[in-house]
């Protein structure tokens, strides 16, 4: 049956290409993107165009850079494997939604891509993803964790676990490991990412019955926390629960330890960066972070990924690189599943993916096109992340 469907799609595509060859907006190698064979044997003659919209400059540049590395590494490896090749175009949104909109228009219009990866930030995604959805181009978010992204439409996917997926696991594991009774929650309330992280923490703490004796807010640009920490220490909590970006996390953790607060600090995804250990040093010991990616896993996919990333870029990959890398794995799986690099086929086959082996673990999309794969709860021990037992 499957050969029949493939042939039918190919025939339809050829007809379509013939009909629309004069139409600029659907120009490009549409018809040539349908190949023969399935799965590993799938062969498509033309490279499948993949557009990535990342924040390579501006405020989020540090994330965009490792995302680009992860994508390029994956594309290089996939192209080497052959059968299906990818033509990756990386564009910069300058951490500016205006640029994101422009590039998305380009990737869905004059320079059509079969799938768009990105953008780096959730708030940009809320402005760009509707463009892709309306144009019928599938988009795969690799770092969007805010609520309401995949709800934009059925062309919008993401492989990044939301805070509401990771944090309950973090809280449950930490509660069990440390026997938490009451905690103080601190978060920066002027950032979409940390605020939704806070909401997830509050819900999860409520779920496991840990009392929140105090909730303290600060700004994402703050670096001085001594007074707030004093206030937090006054209720003598079993742990500090913090939702902050890494820029605030480092001084907060450092100042807490300086003030003699030795209790565990449970962080949101913002803490999930090697920068924490590098900048906070000994103070980072005992910080608990839930993560989408287990960098200490010993399965061959992960170790090979880390090895080749280090060979290529001379640095440790972070979670952003891993999610980017996994994003290409998913795109490749979807393309091979239907042996078609066409937009509609990719959308359909992405939605159907389940239990795909990736560096993030066995990966499936939920019915709402969100990521479903095991999270990992880590604790900083001796200067590096270890799985919290």
């Amino acid at each position, binding site marked *: 049956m499957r050969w029949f469907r493939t042939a039918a799609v190919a025939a339809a595509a050829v007809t379509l290409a013939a009909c629309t060859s004069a139409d600029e907006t659907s120009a490009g190698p549409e018809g040539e993107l349908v190949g023969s064979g399935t799965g590993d044997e799938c062969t498509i003659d033309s490279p499948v165009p993949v557009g990535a919209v990342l924040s*390579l*400059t501006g405020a989020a540049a540090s994330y965009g850079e490792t995302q680009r590395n992860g994508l390029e590494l994956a594309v290089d490896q996939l192209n080497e494997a052959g059968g299906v090749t990818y033509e990756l175009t*990386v*564009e*910069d949104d*300058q951490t500016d*939604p*205006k*640029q994101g*909109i*422009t*590039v998305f*228009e*380009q990737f869905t*219009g*004059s*320079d059509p891509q079969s799938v768009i990866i990105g953008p780096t930030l959730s*708030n940009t995604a*809320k*402005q760009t993803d*509707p463009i892709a959805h309306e144009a019928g181009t599938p988009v795969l978010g690799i770092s969007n964790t*805010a*609520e*309401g992204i995949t709800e934009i439409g059925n062309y919008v996917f993401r492989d990044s676990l939301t805070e509401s997926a990771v944090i309950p696991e973090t809280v449950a594991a930490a509660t069990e490991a440390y026997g938490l009774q009451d905690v103080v929650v601190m978060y920066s*309330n*002027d*950032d*979409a990412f*940390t*605020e*939704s992280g806070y909401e997830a923490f509050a819900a999860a703490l409520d779920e496991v019955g840990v009392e929140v004796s105090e909730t303290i807010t600060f700004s994402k640009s703050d670096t001085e926390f001594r007074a707030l920490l004093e206030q937090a220490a006054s209720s003598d909590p079993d742990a500090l629960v913090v939702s902050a970006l890494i820029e605030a996390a480092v001084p907060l953790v450092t100042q807490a330890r300086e003030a003699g607060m030795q209790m565990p600090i449970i962080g949101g995804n913002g803490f999930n960066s090697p920068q924490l250990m590098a900048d906070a040093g000994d103070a980072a010991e005992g910080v608990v972070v839930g993560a989408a990616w287990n960098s200490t896993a010993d399965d061959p996919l992960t170790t090979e990924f880390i090895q080749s990333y280090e060979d290529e870029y001379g640095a440790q990959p972070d979670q952003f690189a891993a999610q980017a890398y996994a994003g290409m794995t998913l795109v490749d799986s979807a393309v091979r599943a239907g042996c078609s690099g066409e937009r509609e086929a990719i959308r359909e086959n992405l939605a159907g993916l389940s239990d795909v082996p990736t560096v993030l673990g066995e990966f499936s999309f939920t019915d709402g096109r969100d990521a479903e794969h095991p999270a990992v709860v880590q604790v900083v021990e001796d200067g590096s992340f270890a799985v919290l037992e």
Partner: protein
Amino acid sequence: MFADSSTTFTLIALTGVFAYSFYAVLVAGQLSLGQAGFASLAAFASTQAVPDEPMFGVVPPLAVGIVVGMVTGAFAAFVLGLPVTRLRGVFLAIATLGFAEMIRIVLINQSWTGGAQGLSVPKLVGPPEAWIAVGVIGFWFLRQGGSKLGRALAAIREDELAAKAMGIDVTRYRLAAFVTAGAVAGLFGVLWVHFSRFADPNEFSFAFAVDGLVTTVVGGSTFFLGPLLGSGFFTAVPELQRAVGIEAGWLRPFIAGVLLLVVVLFLPDGFGGLVSKLGRLRRWGGPVLARGSLVPRSPMPDRTMDGTSPPPALPAPKLPPPGDEVVRMSGVSKDYGGVHAVRDVDLEIRGGEILGLIGPNGAGKTTLVNILTGMTEPSAGEVRVLGVRLGGSVPAHRVALAGVSRTFQHSKLFERLSVLDNVLVGTHRVAPSTLLRRMLFLPSARRTERQVLASALARLERVGLAERATTPAGDLAYGDQRRLEIARALAAQPSLLVLDEPAAGMNHVEAAELSELIRTLADDGITVLLIEHNVRMVLDTCTRVVVLDFGEVIASGEPDVVARDPHVVEAYLGTAAEGEAELAVETSAHEADGSGEQ
């Protein structure tokens, strides 16, 4: 080449609207960074107001949002403007920046805004809406440029004190510019969120405001197309870089930065300045110059009159009848710390007089003039000028509107404006407002503008500067600048003309011509107060002379009587009377060294 030009062009239009909100205040010389706050407030207000379906079946949802947004922006600007438009320069920038930051924090902490996670809104704005909006706003500023309001704002930008002396209510006009900026920023906020489908308080940040300011300055803040040119530039640079294939990364912002630097260094007036310099656009787009068709082909219509009747003159305000009280000062003193600049002066000026006020340096002449024109508050005493009682709360522009026009000891011209524009600002007191009529192209607006122009040109003729009408005032020779100041003061059709050392820097011939001019003004019924160093000129010109020394009146009366007064001679020569001859010699010396006596 330009990928998906519709988005690019929409962005140009939207960024242009935002830039116009900076233009609105920059034309009045105000540096405000509050526009991001107005835009944010308006955007979120509109998200609450925009209905899902057309209102009453006909009003589109976007129109409702725009009205709500613009009213919100204007209202916020009004409330903020009341206290802060009194601030100048960087202080205004800091205050408005603080406001915008406050709005951002407040909106983040509200639940109905979605906090830091923002709010998704329907897409209602595409290229047509954006271009209609920027077209309307651009048209507004084009038509504002040549109106009375536009001239007043340009005058405030160039020299606030001189603007006040021309009867311009600086506080009110600055507030008007500020409120306009608020309304335009509000419009932008509404359009932007309904274009990007997402309202996020964090987006309207400090950096966002600075982007808007830079766009406007690079585009040009004195030419109505400037904001649009700036917006085109900043939108096109990343597009072009993508088109020529520069790899994404640090190189692009670097190139953009270098381009920005080049533009700022070599085009200090922005692209708008370049365009208006290159093209004839200057004539119909300049900040103050009336629309091209309104400026006669020859700068001197009276000389090339070709049978068409001259426009009817502006209705002249009534002059006080000869002999009536124009100014009454009694017991006026002014102390600066321990220095008594003016001591217990009684002074009366009557209609039709040419009163000369003389005295050695530091005698208190200019202080007295500043008190009389409402620019300095007296420490004691009563002053009544043309029926206006001066006191603490009477601003200088009220005195000017009552009919007092003045020149300054040191020329205070609007130097970057043309000679004609300077005089047009002078008509502020008598010219009717044309802004709304101009917007609708009503013929009556044109008629009024012809009258105003004819009136201004007539003043220039009178002082002999008609040939220089299009020269920037700052490029005039010193003596011409003094004459231009007089023309500007005359354009207000004053009852009382105060000339503060008008002959400084003039040679004998010019001074004699000036003297003649002053006498003809008096013949027209204008009362003149002449402050001069050139004693001979004062004695020749004036009907009465008052002599001031050490802040006190030491003599008053007919010129030849005063000249022989022993107190006067002593004040000037430092020794007891040696006669009129001596005084005459001394005055010659004054004339010779001219402006050195400032």
